[in-house]
């Protein structure tokens, strides 16, 4: 197991940098994970991260890409409700990279 340092505390992550324990998540954790990928989180990133966390809370899984784009379109404007915009925000793939910062497990399977 590897770990990341957040506020002097060591937090366990898996081989790919996803939180081992979802309960360890704080906004600072997200910021530090993003920094490691050279990504500065702005309010648009946070809209996505917060939506992912809310959705996970209710459904125990990250939302489908289409559900996510629709929700973001409603929040940030129709021109942003598409995968292209989400890839601009999260170039490693919105499902995977944004899930990581949101402290959620990585989506698995043929995705």
């Amino acid at each position, binding site marked *: 197991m590897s770990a990341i340092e957040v506020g002097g505390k060591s937090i366990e992550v898996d081989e790919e940098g996803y939180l081992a324990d979802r309960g360890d998540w704080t906004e600072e954790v997200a910021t530090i994970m993003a920094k490691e990928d050279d990504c500065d989180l702005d309010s648009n990133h946070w809209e996505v991260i917060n939506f992912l966390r809310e959705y996970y809370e209710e*459904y125990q*899984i990250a*939302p489908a890409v*289409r*559900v996510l784009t629709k929700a973001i379109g409603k929040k940030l404007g129709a021109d942003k409700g598409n995968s292209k915009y989400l890839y601009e925000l999260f170039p490693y793939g919105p499902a995977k990279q944004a899930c990581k910062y949101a402290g959620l*497990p990585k989506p698995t399977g043929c995705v």
Partner: protein
Amino acid sequence: MADFETPALTEFQLVPHIKKGSMAHSQTFAAKPEFQEDLGFPGELEEGWEDVAVKKLGELTTKYRGLKVFLDSCVKCGACTDKCHYYLGTADPLNMPVARQDLLRSVYRRYYTFAGKYFPWLVGARKMTKGMLDKWYCYFHQCSQCRRCSVFCPYGIDTAEISMAAREIMDAVSVGQKYCNEIIGKVYKIGNNLGLPEKALVNTLEGLEEDVKDETGIDVRFPVDQAGADVLLITPSADFFAEPHIDGLIGYGKVFHQAGINWTLSSHASEAGNFGMFIGSYENMRRVALRIREAALDLKVKRIVVGECGHAWRVAYSFWNTLIGVGHGGNDPYAKALQQQLDPNYPAPQHIIELTYDLIQKGALTLDKSANDDQRVTFHDSCNVARASRMGTMPGGQFVLPREVIKSSVNHYFDMAPETIHENTFCCGGGGGILTDDLIEIRVKGAQPRMQALMDVVQEYDVNYLAAICAICKSQFSKVLPYYKFPMDMIGSVHGLVSNAIQLGAKQ
């Protein structure tokens, strides 16, 4: 981005000079002990594991006669050496199919042949050691079990069978891959590879109904767990989750709607994929497949239709009959009950492409090709569909039917070069349990031959849509297309094209 060079696309496909050990560093994450145990494998490598591995190998060569023939019959003619996409993309000689096979064959010779037991140095027989096990782990996770090499082998030796056996032996001594084995565990716990629970599935499908209504004004339904439906659709869970997969799912829904077919999905069996095959484990393949039988019996459906998923179609077409009784051969009471229940007027199982093709032949669907006039389309034959199954009633139907469905939906269709399609198709580079970020280098490099063939039709015919009928192919291409400077959204579902073209509502 990862630290490696994307192979160049050239004027024509080159066979590279060998670069020894160029992929020896490739390491896929290992499954944790708890994941191994969920699947009935030991959690840790224990003392005496070498004997367990050798014994398992002997057991497999007795159980699977094909495997024994494949191990005994290679004459090292070399016909396979330049046929593997992973060799063409990496130049690592251990990615030549014959060399990959020999990692296992040399151990088989050492313990199970006369010459290998007494004169190992004469016949290239080698002991089962930790070093050998590590090599297996490295190079049997650089095989997508696509079987292209077997098409060119004069003896028909099937490297996929050897690769599956190697993975099964490794699992028997606790050495498993995180990607495949964690996913199989999720199917047991939640019902699909994604870990998508029923509530999320229902929510996602309700969203789709809204979207289709907004777009077309028609109430196309995406039902779940409707007992008494005629058709149970078994589709990869990626179809619920990912792009462009979901456009295919919308297409299936529209086809069912327009044909007036009463259909349902199942929350219990919400996965077509069956990674039990990738790890060569008959027991796990059966356990995954049993959920489908349970759902079919519970929902009392008359037909089982499989969505766009390559290896699932192989499992369904080639194994479901004896595994669970979909088709003839299953011999337990539940298999017999299911055979009684299913309508003999339809193939069991049936592929969604077969279903749509039949409806088109009967004139039951109206397709407006001009709806896809901005698409210039080519088709990627998925390895498991092309080389391990069939569709329709004619030989080669698995090549004809998808193309006919596409051509009924678009005006501009172009095939890639003949040596790269049909039974000669190149794997997408992500099949067989390779579709994981920790193997991105081999995935990108292994995609090179397909990308080369794609570039040719892009240059010659301005192709801008690569259609596929496999969830793995679709995800793999979304990821690797940009490495080769193609747009990622160039990959699409065959039923995504049908979805654009189909005219909903009353027939004219």
